[in-house]
């Protein structure tokens, strides 16, 4: 089991265990496709999910590919970062066709462009005109207050102590 991690490390990539059954691999974006196909050939045949983390302060989106190997009973979590300013990355639909659905979701929720994905149409949201909602700079409460016309009192009526400043 540990061999796979050593092999990945020998490919000059950062990899470490996250738990008993899963490890993470950090890869630059240009090696993403090769590492994913390598892992697929090593038994990580099932594509479990694609997630994205918006690291707004460092200005990156982190794409997280979760793969599963049924033979090794292991999960591989492959992470790559792309700049927030120009969020473009190749579609992994060539490796798993299924991935295109997840990419469509990430496109909708984070505004990431996946080159090579033919179907990046709106998916969950209808008539969405604002910035993608899962980005950190999207304020869901402000949006909700504006669209559904209410005003939330976030102090819960707890008065701040009366101080003479």
């Amino acid at each position: 089991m540990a061999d796979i991690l050593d092999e990945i490390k020998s490919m000059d990539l950062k990899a470490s265990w996250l738990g008993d059954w899963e490890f993470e691999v950090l890869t630059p974006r240009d090696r993403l496709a090769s590492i994913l196909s390598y892992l697929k050939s090593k038994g990580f045949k099932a594509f479990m999910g694609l997630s994205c983390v918006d690291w707004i302060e460092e200005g990156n989106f982190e794409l997280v590919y979760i793969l599963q190997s049924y033979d090794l009973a292991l999960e591989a979590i492959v992470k790559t970062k792309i700049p927030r300013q120009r969020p473009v990355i190749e579609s992994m639909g060539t490796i798993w066709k299924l991935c295109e659905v997840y990419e469509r979701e990430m496109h909708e929720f984070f505004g990431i462009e996946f080159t090579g994905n033919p179907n990046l149409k709106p998916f969950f949201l209808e008539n969405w005109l604002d910035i993608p909602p899962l980005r950190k700079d999207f304020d869901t409460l402000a949006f909700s207050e504006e669209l559904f016309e209410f005003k939330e009192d976030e102090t819960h009526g707890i008065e701040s102590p009366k101080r003479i400043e």
Partner: protein
Amino acid sequence: MGSQDIEKKNGFAPIVGLKYLFKKPHTVRYPKEDLEVFPISGNSPNYRGFHTNDLEKCIGCGNCARICPTDAVTMVESGDVKVANKFAKIVRPVFDYGRCCFCAQCVDVCPTGSLQMSRDYIHSFHPDLSVPVADEPEIVSKDFIWRADKKRSENPGYVRNESNKFDKVINFERIEPKKTDPDKRKISFSKYVQIYSKAEASKEASRCLGCGVCVEACPNELHIPEYINAISKQNPEESLEWIYKRNPLPLICGEVCTHQCEEACVVGIQGEPLAIRWLKTFSASNVDDYLKTSKITLPKFNGKKLAAIGGGPASLAFGYYARLLGYDVTIYEAEEKLGGALMWGIPVYRLPKDEMMKDINAILSTGINVRLKTKVGKDVKFEDLMNSCDAVFVGVGNSKPMTLKIKGEELEGVMQGLTFMHMVNDGSLKDLKGKKIVVVGGGNVAMDVARSSVRLGADVTIVYRRRIEDMPADPEEIEDAREEGVKIVEMGVPAEIKGEKSAQAFEYAVASLVKDPSGGRPKPVVDEKSPHVTLSVDYVIAAIGQTPSIDFIPTDIQQKIGFDGRFVPVDEYGRTKFKGLFCGGDASNSRQDIISAIGSGMRATKGVELYLAKEERNV
């Protein structure tokens, strides 16, 4: 069983269904009958229905409102409730059942346990047909909002029980700072309470619920939840920044504050309160340069001159905050060192002088003038100060001790507590080996005197008029004093000090306690039948309180400001009735502790600013 061995049904199978004719019906015929599966009829005994709240037990801390994931709880002022204690607020939670998700997190976090859930859950509403549509949403939503009260408490549902009280569920034990053994510490004047390590501090800070009830208990309303939160994040710098906003003597305060905040702390309802004071010490001692850490930028002098009389915490705080506003402040101190009561009244095992100087030096480095050994009224005339400065702040402490008013008080060996402490602190009293000392009083000064005497080798007895639990001194102090071998005599009313030239025996009467009908502390009463006890002594030290001395102020001004011998009346900004004269410190507040003094100095700064702004407008 695999899909291949599914057998075919036989033709009589439908007849089997007939047997269900004779079974008890499966249907619960609600509303005619109720569920009968739980120990009680109806829904489950711990059902999470509408809330009930014991309004009198509730202290209005607002934790329920802050934990609510749906923002359903609002604290609303409820004038009709009786409050449980002096720290309780009069706000009570109001629930919006158009939001509530019945998760019971509010019940789990309620420190008093007053908030519970009932088994009631049915409420429906239909808007009246005559209501205009535009008003309808508001009307509907209002109908689902109500204040939780005791109405439903006969039908309790989800209640926090023994097994999930705070102390079983969350990290709850107070982390006591390490202390030196009593045997070791009683022979040395070095500090015996160790400052928290980073891990300890963070762990202790993480007990904080962040409700801020403590803030209102604090005479100077420090940003307590904020700075504790910063410590919990292991960030003492941020923490100090918060503290320094309202307290320029953080380390001193951390060591010797009377910490009323800890009495108010809601964590203390179910366990021991947070060690707020020690946490402050931690962050202050982990920061070297206060001013830099709190990102203070000093403004240019604005040309106005202020004078502060007295070198204690009130004047220091006044000086610091006035300097931040650009005033040129001069502090006049009669003694040779700054610090006032901190310097002379507090023993070094509680407050090492280097720690104290760290705080004071930080303040002085902002550019405040200090004139030591300058007694106002003797070296400088008060009237001159009033004339030469734009405003004068009186921050003097209580220096006139109260006397025992018993026979033999004039004998040698009978001393005042503050005088005694001054002698200990300036080094003129070095050894009391084998001497027998009686300390009269139950305040912190009495403790300081007693414990300092122990350290000088004396055999000490404290005589107090009431019981130990009535003593105004901090419980920790009393506990520590007893550990160090101080004997405490309860209910002893001093009767006489006997001796020829110097005190040789101390006689006290054993009083009986009579309950105070108005609810205050019980009163000690001595009559003819009370037994008298005599102790042989070398010294008798009275530490029963002091009154301020403002003799340097001319009598006509004293009268004008309404000084009654004990107290200078001031408004919330420290203004006296005499124009341009401000007062703070022990002379003008009844609590007479360091944090009140700091607060009074800070508020007086604001008062000065208001006063001078007004002056300018008038010109």
